[in-house]
């Protein structure tokens, strides 16, 4: 009895000691939290992305010794793509490190919605590259949200542009039937208002078809598609939903080359489980595709050669891995920009926000960073938190992704009124006084 009690006591002291000693960290470190999901139905997509993010931060530490000498300190927290877990992770990590979280990157539109108000109150920027709420492009209302490189409204517009091009002109869209097969969550619902605007403008018939989380059951949806015979099916899926959609399409003999996935439905794990059935499937590209670029060579040299890589070397250069490093790069560059103004030291979220809002990446700078060919120039400002609205379309040929289109630019004249309208509603609801972007520097 006594020995058990003593052992328990020792264990308790050890645990307590660990809890107390944890905050003692080096002072010249910039803390960046990573909300990831390596388990659950979305892990197939979450893991490669998280690997890219982690590898890029390690690259900065290993190659450059940090951002201008300020080491990056990271901690991962598993969200499982669940909103409540994401909120818990955010609360757990937001004030770690000497200055708290530099920014947060939830990789979930649902978590983005849940955190939008909290991050603004805590003054921590929330970077949602290629996802998140589309209305947060308006930085005057959403000071802390950065839907970099493209929102779902841009994606919807680019998808329709590509459909029009395949059909031979925007006038050919009239009377056509386009369905949206979407993940029934804020993520999947986000493009609907834009597609409704587009349907009205070009005169095509738009049908949204929801798929319940996690998306492994799609029989009835594809039956409806078979009966309705849409000319195109846009796929807004994530995780297992994507590969299931392709398999079900094959089962009802819906042509795969009439399916266009959003840029979250166009990675290797989405098509490989469907095997040959996936051949011909198309998806949007959030600028970059798969493949290796000079940045990857550095990662292999400085991270993987030292045995610090987080995935198998063969997976470097996959679509979502590339998205991970792109995302990490934009965050690092924002910190670098903010250091120009606030000094080469660990910065607070509020200071990093300034860096993000004034971040401009020219072609020359992108080349310097080793991302030439992956990205087009980015220019973020108070009124435009998106920074760039480019996209291409790629097609899976059974072995790899082939780029099959030129660059598209989302039509701002269509998106802007919707952004203004929806963000104004949010501002009114939350009693936010929009900033005057003309006065921001």
């Amino acid at each position: 009895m006594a020995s058990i009690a003593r052992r328990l006591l020792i264990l308790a002291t050890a645990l307590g000691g660990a809890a107390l000693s944890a905050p003692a960290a080096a002072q010249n470190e910039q803390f960046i939290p990573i909300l990831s999901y390596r388990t659950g139905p979305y892990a197939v997509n979450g893991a490669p992305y998280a690997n890219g993010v982690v590898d890029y931060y390690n690259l900065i530490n290993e190659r450059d010794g940090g951002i201008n000498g300020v080491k990056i300190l990271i901690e991962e927290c598993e969200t499982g793509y669940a909103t409540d877990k994401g909120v818990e992770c955010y609360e757990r990590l937001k004030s770690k490190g000497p200055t708290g979280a530099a920014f947060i990157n939830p990789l979930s539109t649902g978590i983005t919605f849940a955190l939008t108000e909290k991050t603004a109150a805590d003054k921590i920027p929330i970077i949602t590259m290629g996802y998140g709420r589309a209305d947060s492009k308006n930085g005057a209302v959403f000071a802390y949200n950065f839907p970099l490189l493209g929102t779902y409204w841009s994606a919807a517009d680019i998808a329709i542009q590509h459909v029009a091009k395949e059909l031979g002109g925007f006038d050919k869209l009239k009377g056509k039937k386009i369905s949206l097969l979407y993940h029934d969550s804020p993520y999947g619902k986000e493009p609907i208002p834009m597609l409704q605007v587009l349907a009205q403008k070009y005169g095509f018939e738009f049908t949204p078809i929801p798929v319940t989380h996690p998306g492994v059951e799609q029989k009835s949806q594809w039956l409806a598609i078979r009966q309705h015979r849409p000319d195109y099916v846009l796929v807004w899926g994530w995780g297992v939903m994507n590969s299931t959609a392709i398999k079900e399409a094959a089962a009802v003999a819906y042509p795969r080359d009439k399916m266009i996935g959003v840029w979250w439905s166009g990675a290797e794990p989405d098509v490989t489980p469907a095997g040959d059935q996936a051949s011909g499937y198309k998806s949007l590209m959030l600028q970059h595709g798969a493949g290796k670029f000079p940045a990857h060579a550095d990662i292999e040299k400085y991270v993987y050669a030292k045995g610090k890589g987080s995935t198998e070397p063969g997976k470097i250069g996959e679509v979502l891995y590339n998205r991970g490093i792109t995302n990490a790069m934009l965050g690092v560059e924002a910190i670098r920009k903010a250091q120009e103004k606030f000094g080469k030291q660990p910065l607070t979220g509020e200071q990093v926000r300034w860096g993000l809002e004034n971040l401009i990446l020219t072609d020359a700078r992108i080349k310097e960073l080793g991302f030439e060919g992956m990205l087009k120039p980015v220019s973020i400002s108070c009124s435009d938190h998106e920074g760039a609205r480019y996209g291409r379309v790629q097609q899976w040929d059974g072995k790899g992704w082939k780029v099959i289109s030129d660059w598209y630019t989302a039509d701002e004249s269509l998106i802007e009124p919707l952004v203004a309208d929806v963000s104004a509603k949010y501002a009114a609801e939350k009693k936010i006084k929009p900033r005057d972007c003309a006065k921001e520097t």
Partner: protein
Amino acid sequence: MLYREAGQFKATYAEDMAIFPIRQDRIALAVLLGIAFIGVPLLATFRIWPFGTDYLLWAILLPFLILALAAIGTNILVGYCGQISLGSGAFMAIGAYSAYKLATGVHIPLAWLGFAIAIPPLPVLASILLGGFMAAGAGILFGIPSLRIKGLYLAVATLAAQFFFDWAFLRLPWFTNYAPSGSVNAPELDFFGMVVRSPVERYLLCLAVVTVMAVLAKNLVRGNLGRQWMAIRDMDIAAELIGIRPLYAKLTAFAVSSFIIGVAGALWAFVYLGSWEPLAFSIDRSLELLFMVIIGGLGSIMGSFIGAAFILIVPIMLNVIPTKLGLPLSTQTITHLQFIIFGSLICYLLIKEPHGFARLISIGKEKLRLWPFPY
């Protein structure tokens, strides 16, 4: 030694029937309430360890309080009245969405009658309480089958409520005020001019609601109504023979339980999440509440609190401890370990004590009373 009632004489019936007849229990409760109402806010205001950051308040105490309230509601139905329910998540959702609709103003155009039902936006407190009443109404409706079917069959009927409301809040845009993404934002928490914003204020608000509701629930289950519920639970035919109306007893259990769950749902949405989608109240939530009640102890108000704490906090602890200890484990290994250990813990507990933590505590109490001279 310390926990002994020798010398505590009860001179009146009121004293004899008090909720906590033993003085030590009253002192313990007073200390607990003192810590909860005064100690925690003080520590949090001055940012003293462990309240150096908002983490403990935001991510642990706030969800714990609200889920404990929901567990009390579930316990009234499942633990006290013996009606197995898998619809708790749906009743939380009804509370949340009704409160949201009422707080943002309801407008139902009845074109064929030539007028519209228009309710102006109500104050937040009224919305939350009315949200509870709406949930109670739905609870009564979905409780009607309980008059004919029992046990697992009733569980399936309540499952229908879960799926129906999941569907309704996801598909009918009216409930979300036609929000494009289907995600809605809670209104500002304005209580008669006092705006609740900071984590401490949110915590105190939830604490007050939970305390009041828990006291009410405790008194209800001790009284006439609670005894009717328990009689129905233990043997419904015998209860009917001694003059208890099953209709009244079962439907009141559904109503009271759904009301409490509905208020918890409104708090979960308004105070904790702030912005939510129907997935926050999915079938997983219903099962989670049922587990809380089973682990905590069926038919025990205190068990609801312990069950909520166990289901909510143990996984988080299991997730945080390896990182704190600096073990070189990847996040996915930690998450898998968390599932394995938590699952085994539940199995172990239920084998060792099928009646849950509440029973463990009452055994402990009995032993303490006799200690150190057990017979």
